């Protein structure tokens, strides 16, 4: 993927250069949300009646809910009637083969450095391309099918594998879970679906690339990943959006289910448009991500590198239900200029000897605000549970803030929780030392920041690690001097 990443780099240059828009003809709903819009959305997607009802029930729940206000991030009220809940490039139907894809869309992904092709560059990665509300392409489907692995858009899964979708959709994040999860359940557009059968080790990385293109739309994708007994899958998620002065809402739900001895590794490199230097525009990234270790010895590992979005507000979590199951959360959150991030995780220990590990690295520059918020909850049943939490913050400059808010609730005396937290600054000494060796100031910042995050970066699959490393440097450009 090296070449692809180089392209991303060229496209990015210094400022946010994923910021272009694609001139495709789009079909879209007028702004506004009511039951009728949901029925139309569901009909447009040719969904079965049970799903239409499911959406409507979620919508009714949502109507009774209030926008939460406990978070540190601040933003003006969102007008949910001003958003369009469906936007899709016009095409008669989903192209049957990769050759039939609209050349404009193809060019978009080329420019982003992830060409829609099953060729050498992306040889190790199968990609689902989501453009605004719909999935436009999925590569390597055949090859995966041979192993019994299902990897497709969730809309397609609703049609082709209704029994699986019906069984698991909402089983980890119920529609009434929270305000944005309810909204997502009512209006979710598309996203990815993965099922890995018993004992199968998925031989390649599965990946979804989300792109918001249309103006004034929200993106509400829904991802569902099921790893059956003894299986393994590594899944990557990447995202960008054009630069726009108004804010765009991204309210996704991701559900992971790992059965006995199964392992799911979920990695995110989030680079939505962060807004400009004055804080105009940018994506609101309000996402509910949760994994359920349902089986014994199951393992779910979240790794996230969050560099984009005006506001990031998410807590990828693990419910450790099976005995001896393991949850991990590795996070790098970078904020610069006026960005805000309130992110962290929840580890809910239910099963015996369940273990969790949290490593969070927050980096704040400019006038940004960066909060780690994490909950470790050990229930009565979780005999011998263990948690280790490490939260480090790095400040660049004088006007940014970093905060650590850990909540620890232990109901079992045999459990053990450890929490470590540090806050540091990039020192003048370190910068000078690097520059004295010939390294430019910007590269020095990137080097030091990457060093600070190394534990987390090491968790990323190779192809992503390189990209993420460069992204860190780019996000922090202009943060010193």
């Amino acid at each position, binding site marked *: 993927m090296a070449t692809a990443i180089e392209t991303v780099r060229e496209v990015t240059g210094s400022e946010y250069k994923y910021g272009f828009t694609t001139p495709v003809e789009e079909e879209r709903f007028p702004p506004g949300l009511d039951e009728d819009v949901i029925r139309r959305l569901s009909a447009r997607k040719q969904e079965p009646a049970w799903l239409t009802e499911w959406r409507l029930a979620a919508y009714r729940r949502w109507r009774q809910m209030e926008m939460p206000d406990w978070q540190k991030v601040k933003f003006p009220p969102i007008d949910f009637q001003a958003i369009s809940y469906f936007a899709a490039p016009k095409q008669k139907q989903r192209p049957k083969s990769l050759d039939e894809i609209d050349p404009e869309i193809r060019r978009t992904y080329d420019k982003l450095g992830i060409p829609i092709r099953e060729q050498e560059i992306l040889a190790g990665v199968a990609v689902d391309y989501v453009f605004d509300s719909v999935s436009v392409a999925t590569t390597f489907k055949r090859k995966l099918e041979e192993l019994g692995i299902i990897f497709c858009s969730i809309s397609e899964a609703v049609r082709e594998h209704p029994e699986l979708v019906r069984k698991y959709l909402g089983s980890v994040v119920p529609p009434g879970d929270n305000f944005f999860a309810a909204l997502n359940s009512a209006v979710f557009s598309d996203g990815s679906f993965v099922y890995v059968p018993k004992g199968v080790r998925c031989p390649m990385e599965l990946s979804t690339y989300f792109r918001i293109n249309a103006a004034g739309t929200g993106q509400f994708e829904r991802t569902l990943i099921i790893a059956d007994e003894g299986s393994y899958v590594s899944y990557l998620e990447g995202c960008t959006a054009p630069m726009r002065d108004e804010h765009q809402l991204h309210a996704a739900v991701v559900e992971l289910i790992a059965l006995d001895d199964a392992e799911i590794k979920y990695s995110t490199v989030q680079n939505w448009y962060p807004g400009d230097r004055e804080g105009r525009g940018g994506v609101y990234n309000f996402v509910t991500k949760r994994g359920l270790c349902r089986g014994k010895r199951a393992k779910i590992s979240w790794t996230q590198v969050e560099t984009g979005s005006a506001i990031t507000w998410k807590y990828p979590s693990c419910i450790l239900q099976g005995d001896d199951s393991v949850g991990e959360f590795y996070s790098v959150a970078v904020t610069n200029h006026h960005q805000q991030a309130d992110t962290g995780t929840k580890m809910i220990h239910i099963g015996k000897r369940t273990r969790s590990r949290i490593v969070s690295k927050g980096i704040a520059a400019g006038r940004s605000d960066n909060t780690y918020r994490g909950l470790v909850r050990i229930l009565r049943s979780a005999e011998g549970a263990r948690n280790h939490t490490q939260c480090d913050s790095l400040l660049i400059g004088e006007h940014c803030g970093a905060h650590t808010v850990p909540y620890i609730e232990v109901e079992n005396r045999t459990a053990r929780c450890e929490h470590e937290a540090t806050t540091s600054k990039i020192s003048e000494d370190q910068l*000078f030392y690097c520059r004295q060796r010939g*390294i430019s*100031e910007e590269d020095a910042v990137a080097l030091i920041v990457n060093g600070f995050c190394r*534990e987390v970066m090491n968790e990323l699959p190779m192809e992503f690690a390189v990209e993420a490393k460069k992204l860190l440097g780019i996000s922090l450009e202009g943060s010193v001097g």
Partner: protein
Amino acid sequence: MLLEIENLHASVEGKPILKGVSLAIAPGEVHAIMGPNGSGKSTLAFVLAGREGYEVTEGSIRFGDEDLLAMEPEERARAGLFLAMQYPVEIPGVGNLYFLRQALNAIRKARGLEEISAAEFMRKAREEARRLGIGEDLLKRDLNVGFSGGEKKRNEILQMALLEPRLAVLDETDSGLDIDALRTVAEGVNRMRRPDRAFLVITHYQRLLEYIVPDVVHVMVDGRIRRTGGPELARELEERGYEGFLGRLAA
């Protein structure tokens, strides 16, 4: 001349530290600077390297045919100025060799050279490390993190050897070294002596200068070079200390 310092005045936080330093070093020469604590030796080294906060209020520095003071720290490094620091800095999470390779490539790039291949780099680094008595594990560890005082100093010399500067300023590279380490480090420097490369060695001890024999010795007192002589000047200082000498100067 490779380096020409003329009437250099510099302040730190508004406090004058260097009060008219003049010094000229020709290619191939080794100069030593000695002087009591707080006399401004490290300050001079930092001013040469362009460290922020060290404000030049008067005077000039030429490096080859360039105006050194007009250059950014990284530009000075790329032009061939190396400073082995008195207190090398720790950078957690950044591998020692990784850092060195980044530095080498930054310098090569600025000179229009290709990046060094990973294999070639490893070969050179390992060879030099072996000569300097730096173990394999130290190469793999994070830059200077948890290194002993002596290990840090050896590592500075390793960097110097690979970056191949035109002028190397060694700020008390000998302090904190045991006798064997002192010899190894001195040998490292001597191996690098070349007709087109010069050294400015800051030290408190005559002993280092027995291994690295200087062409010229300067004595710095209170921000000025008070005396300049040959290697015998270092011996004289060792015997009498700065006290008497200061007294005589003050008179």
